[in-house]
């Protein structure tokens, strides 16, 4: 059985503009967020440790045709990629993405574990993997902070919660969402990059994949409220600055006991 790992190609947050009440991604570089790269690495390590193949899965718009993106993901331990490209999936919400992913992984078949990251870099809902598991009717769990191996048809894992660590036995097939600090993402080596070009990429027939299962409508987008700050500079020796800070705290009524 193969391991599947899901990731999202999305516009980089730092290049986002809001204009005329809409999000403008024209100037944005599209890449895969760090949390997804961590998930790929965690899945790649488990695949290597258990002698399985790792298939990278992504659903999205025509940006997925980018060869640099494909080679990048293939240089991180994926043996192949399976992609669904349909522009109806650009800026899809969690439910729409999960429905498309569920159809895609069903078509791929022959898996007993699907690994997802903590959340995408753009929307960061931390929900898609969970919805995917539920839609597939499979055991699904989030917050996985260690993948310790597979014994028979059971995944041994640890989960990070409010109160500590849960040591879990997860019956396969299953969907797991890993934490952003389960491991460090990989810096691909030259050998990985050269091999990536020879690995297969499969484009699934988008006609068979539902790409319209929107679960929310966007009413409005705006910039967050900004507060005008005074930006008064204090300068001098450290002792003089300390005096200025204490004088400021007194004036603002912020000295301990002086409120």
């Amino acid at each position, binding site marked *: 059985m193969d391991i599947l790992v899901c990731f999202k190609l999305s516009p980089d947050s730092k290049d986002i503009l809001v204009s005329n009440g809409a999000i403008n991604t024209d100037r944005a570089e599209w890449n895969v967020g760090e949390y997804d790269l961590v998930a790929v690495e965690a899945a790649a390590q488990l695949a290597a440790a258990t002698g399985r193949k790792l298939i990278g899965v992504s659903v999205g718009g025509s940006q997925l045709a980018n060869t640099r993106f494909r080679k990048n993901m293939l240089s991180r331990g994926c043996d192949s990629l399976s992609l669904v490209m349909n522009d109806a999936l650009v800026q899809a919400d969690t*439910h729409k993405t999960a429905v498309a992913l569920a159809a895609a992984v069903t078509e791929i078949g022959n898996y007993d574990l699907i690994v997802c990251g903590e959340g995408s870099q753009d929307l*960061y*809902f931390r929900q898609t993997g969970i919805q995917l598991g539920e839609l597939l009717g499979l055991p699904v769990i989030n917050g996985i902070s260690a993948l310790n191996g597979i014994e028979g048809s059971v995944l041994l894992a640890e989960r990070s919660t409010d109160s500590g660590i849960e040591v*879990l036995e*997860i019956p396969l097939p299953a969907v797991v969402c890993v934490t952003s600090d389960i491991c460090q993402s990989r810096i691909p080596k030259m050998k990985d990059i050269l091999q990536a070009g020879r690995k297969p990429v499969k484009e699934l027939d988008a006609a068979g994949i539902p790409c319209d299962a929107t679960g929310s409508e966007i009413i409005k*987008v705006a910039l967050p409220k900004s507060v005008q700050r005074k930006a008064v500079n204090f300068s001098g020796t450290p002792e003089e*600055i*300390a005096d200025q800070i204490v004088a400021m705290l007194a004036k603002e009524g912020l000295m*301990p*006991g002086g409120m």
Partner: protein
Amino acid sequence: MARIFVITDRRSEWKALVSGAYSISGEKPLVVTADKAIAQAAADFGADAALMSGAEVFWNYTDTIAALVEELQPAGCFFGTSPDCRLVSGRLAAKLGISAIPDAKSIDNTYAIEHLIYGGSVVQTSKSTGKQFVALFGPGQFEEAAIPEQGTVMNVDYVEPKWQIAVKEKKTKEISAVDLTAAKRIVAVGLGISKKEDLDMVRELAALLQAEMACTRPIAEGLDWMEPERYIGISANFVKPDLYISLGISGQVQHTVGITDSKVILSVNKDPDCAMMKQYSDYCVAEDLYKIVPALIERLKK
């Protein structure tokens, strides 16, 4: 208007969620819980409670909660933001054919929900396309206010889940009792702090100012120098202190979205051009924090 369900496994969260749900719908919320103490306290607080039993882990109540939503047809569900809340809300949303909206900042009486995307650089307002909405609220989003009525507690039939994940062992850690969202003064550190031991001087400064210690995400996750409960930003705490002091914080938007509601912000950073100093501070000290913090400690001791 229909009532709203309040669902959380954290004892610290349900009161604020009940207050928020009541304030927008005007109907007594229903607290859905597996914790007897919460159920009784919720009834005394003026909400009704649905007490679930039969499972050892919270996520095994997903089918029970879904059946209750189907039966009672609430307007929607307010969840907290614990890992179990994220899991159960996502599974419930999948069953309802909608998207759960995480880390909501506000909700109005049409159930339009404001939330942050793109690392906090965009505020989006979203509405569910289904019969119900599902929203998750972090700490500090609503003021706690009891409802002047007595609620009732009802028992809920357990729906057996279709699968089981076995919890073989629980390694508990000490739970941090800090509530940054209620703190009046906060001293926060970023990656300008070069080693864990140096937090001692920051701790001393915080004690002199009667302030809580806080940090940016990399200090808590990755470096593990502080408890995760102490980091401020997009995926954690949104604070509103009277005084916020930043030490060696560059001011990435993922952090600064969490401090917008601070009254006075003082920053110490070697780099006068970083975003924290240029955009987010009332008072700026363009100096090495390793010089300023000790001097300030000495001055405050006088």
